[in-house]
């Protein structure tokens, strides 16, 4: 299986590199990387802002075939702290070299399972104390989940096969709520109008946003109008 650098792929709907770089900065991590295995070809497609020498070494050594942060994390439904991995031969082989390039063993990988059984993996690392690490994790985990699904869905959508299969399937409730958002109603208002709790409004909004590959409600409204799912207010 091949290792493909996503930043060299032209037709991706998101500026993969800059998105991940910004994420890395704003969430205070040292490095960030994303990888997904193509369910058909088995190729690993990825992007990382690691030092270029490490990326070259990693690629040359074909570490993507033995890297536990990839093949082990894909087995979990929750983000996997790298401290959870057994320190077996594969782990030592990757991380002994990593430390020579100044990459720490302190990291976490967020797995996102997609509809075709594929898995996207967003990994972040930071060289810091146990205490700082635990606090940082608790603080940013929600944002990491959002970023991971955003990355994964956009990368999947860029595939030709996926393009035809990835029509957003929004429920009536999700559409209805986006329609009220399009006419300028707040979450609280929408809850009152539809006689549902604001939490219900929120859970449907979040789901609708993700199906539309949008990060904000405004963006989701825009896309839903573009797709003819709702009227422009």
């Amino acid at each position: 299986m091949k290792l493909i650098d996503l930043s060299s792929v032209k037709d991706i709907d998101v500026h993969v590199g800059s998105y991940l770089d910004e994420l890395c900065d704003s969430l205070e991590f040292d490095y960030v990387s994303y990888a997904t295995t193509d369910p058909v070809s088995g190729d690993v497609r990825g992007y990382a802002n690691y030092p270029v020498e490490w990326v070259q070494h990693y690629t040359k050594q074909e570490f993507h075939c033995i890297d536990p942060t990839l093949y082990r994390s894909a087995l979990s439904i929750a983000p996997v702290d790298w401290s959870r991995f057994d320190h077996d031969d594969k782990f030592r082989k990757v991380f002994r070299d990593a430390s020579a390039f100044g990459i720490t063993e302190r990291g976490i990988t967020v797995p996102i399972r997609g509809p075709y059984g594929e898995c996207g993996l967003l990994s972040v690392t930071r060289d810091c104390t146990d205490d700082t690490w635990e606090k940082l994790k608790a603080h940013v985990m929600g944002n990491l989940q959002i970023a991971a699904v955003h990355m994964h869905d956009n990368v999947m959508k860029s595939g030709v096969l996926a393009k035809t299969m990835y029509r957003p399937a929004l429920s009536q409730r999700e559409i209805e709520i986006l329609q009220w958002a399009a006419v300028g109603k707040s979450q609280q208002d929408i809850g009152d109008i539809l006689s549902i709790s604001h939490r219900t409004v929120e859970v449907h909004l979040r789901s609708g946003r993700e199906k539309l590959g949008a990060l904000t409600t405004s963006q989701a409204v825009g896309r839903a109008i573009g797709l003819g799912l709702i009227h422009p207010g």
Partner: protein
Amino acid sequence: MIIIIDALNKHKFGSVLREMHRLRARVFEGRLGWDVKVRDGMERDMYDDLNPAHVVSLDDGGHVVGCMRLLQTTGPHMLADVFSSILDGEPPLRSAQLWEATRFCVDTKRLTTGKTRNSISYVTSEVMVGAFEYAMKAGVRDAVAVIDPVMNRVLTRSGNAPYDYVGSAKPMGKVTAMAALMDCSAERVASVRAFAGIEGDVFATEEEALARFALSQKPKPVPALSGDGRIARDLEEYFSQQMLSAETPDEAQAVMRLMSAVTEQLGAVRKP
């Protein structure tokens, strides 16, 4: 106590998982009459092959008394597929911050009514607290749980009422099934803990969980041995010493294996 078993640690918990599948068979085929596949007394389906996370509750005697299965809603999950009738033909919710909880059950035969540590209400709450805290740590904010009206009543009465439902209740075997929404939040966890009187960390380490589970697996005294009290006593003492000095789950399991092998051998010798 709660242990989370997923594809990263399931090799250590084979026998715990088998007990869990037996509990699921008793509940979903037996008590609820759902159309589920049971083989060798164990209920399993294809979603168990998708590397879900299992929230498993062990009672003081080490028995599996409660469980719940968690899957991401971004990938294949039950509401998107086999439970889609609940959604009245609507597509399911999908979010990295929403997990699906299915096969939620407790052992109503072993557990009692009332509010003690061995009650239905305590274990139900403990499984929920375990699932919510695990989800919160993962950055997950809500759960959609497929439950039956009885479970729904238990939740509502235990400071854990769903804030809403998706779709509508549908007949499923002897009962109906419904999809309840619950926030994975500190407030809800506090409310459930207060109701059930759950204090401190509900999670066990892998070693603690295995040691507790081993209690439920103590071989029954072999009747043929009763005439030979001294050997049985010596052996029992030897095994409990070994169990106490076991430092890793592997060692504990090795003692378990030896114990059942010896018991079997002795039983076979005495029988004829």
